[in-house]
C-alpha cells in the first residue's frame, strides 16, 4: 500500500507566507487540479492566568512523528481522490501571529480537497508526537493543550 515516499514535514521556525506562495505556484503545471484546500495554524496571543503568550516552542520525537505523518499521508491518499498533498509543521520557536502548520491538498473537484484537508489537520493535532511550550511575555511558560 505504501506507495509514496516519506516527505520532509518539519521546518525550523515559522512557515512564511512566501513559502506558502511558492508551494501554491508549483501546482500551476498540474492542470488536472481544480481545487486546492489549505489549512494554516497561526500562533495565538492567548491570555492564560493573566499572562500573554508571545510564542510557542515546538519539540518532537522525530522518528515517531515522521512515521505518523507518513501514515496519515498514505491514509489520506487512500481515502480521498487527491492529486497532491503537502504537510508542513514548525519546530523550534514560532512567535505569535506566525504560522506553525500548513496542510495543502489538491484535487480535481473541491469536496475531496476540503474533506482531505480537514481529515489531515484533525489527525495531525491528535496523533503526531509534537509538543508545544507556550512562552509568556515574562519568559515563564506553560504546556499547550490541544482540545480533543
Amino acid at each position, binding site marked *: 500500500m505504501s506507495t509514496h515516499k516519506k516527505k520532509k514535514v518539519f521546518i525550523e521556525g515559522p512557515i512564511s507566507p512566501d513559502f506558502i506562495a511558492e508551494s501554491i505556484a508549483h501546482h500551476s503545471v498540474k492542470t488536472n487540479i481544480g481545487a486546492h484546500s489549505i489549512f494554516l495554524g497561526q500562533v495565538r496571543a492567548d491570555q492564560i492566568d493573566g499572562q500573554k503568550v508571545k510564542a510557542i516552542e515546538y519539540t518532537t*520525537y522525530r522518528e515517531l512523528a515522521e512515521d505518523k505523518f507518513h501514515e496519515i499521508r498514505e491514509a489520506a491518499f487512500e481515502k480521498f481522490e487527491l492529486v497532491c498533498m503537502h504537510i508542513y509543521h514548525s519546530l523550534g520557536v514560532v512567535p505569535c501571529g506566525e504560522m506553525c502548520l500548513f496542510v495543502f491538498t489538491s484535487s480535481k473537484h473541491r469536496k475531496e480537497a476540503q474533506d482531505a484537508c480537514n481529515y489531515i489537520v484533525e489527525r495531525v493535532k491528535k496523533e503526531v*508526537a*509534537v*509538543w508545544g*511550550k507556550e512562552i509568556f511575555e515574562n519568559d515563564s511558560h506553560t*504546556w499547550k493543550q490541544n482540545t480533543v
Partner: protein
Amino acid sequence: MEINILAFGQIEEIIGKDSFTLSDVRDTEALKSKLSDLYPEMNRIPYSISVNKNIINGNHTLENGDEVALLPPFSGG
C-alpha cells in the same frame, strides 16, 4: 539489563533530562511505578509510552537495549 529512556515535553521538564537509562524494569508497568516513585509529579500527567517507536497499549515486557519513550499528550498544530 538496561533500558534507554527518552523523555519529552513536560515529562522531560519534570525529570530534568531528555534521556537516561534504567535497569531492573521488566515491563512497562514496573517502569511506570518506578517513575511514579522517583518523580511524583508524573502522576498528574496522562502520558503514553512507546517501545522501539511503537506506542503500546497495556503492559509490555521490556528487553535489554529497548528504547522507551515517555510521551505526554501531543499538542502540535
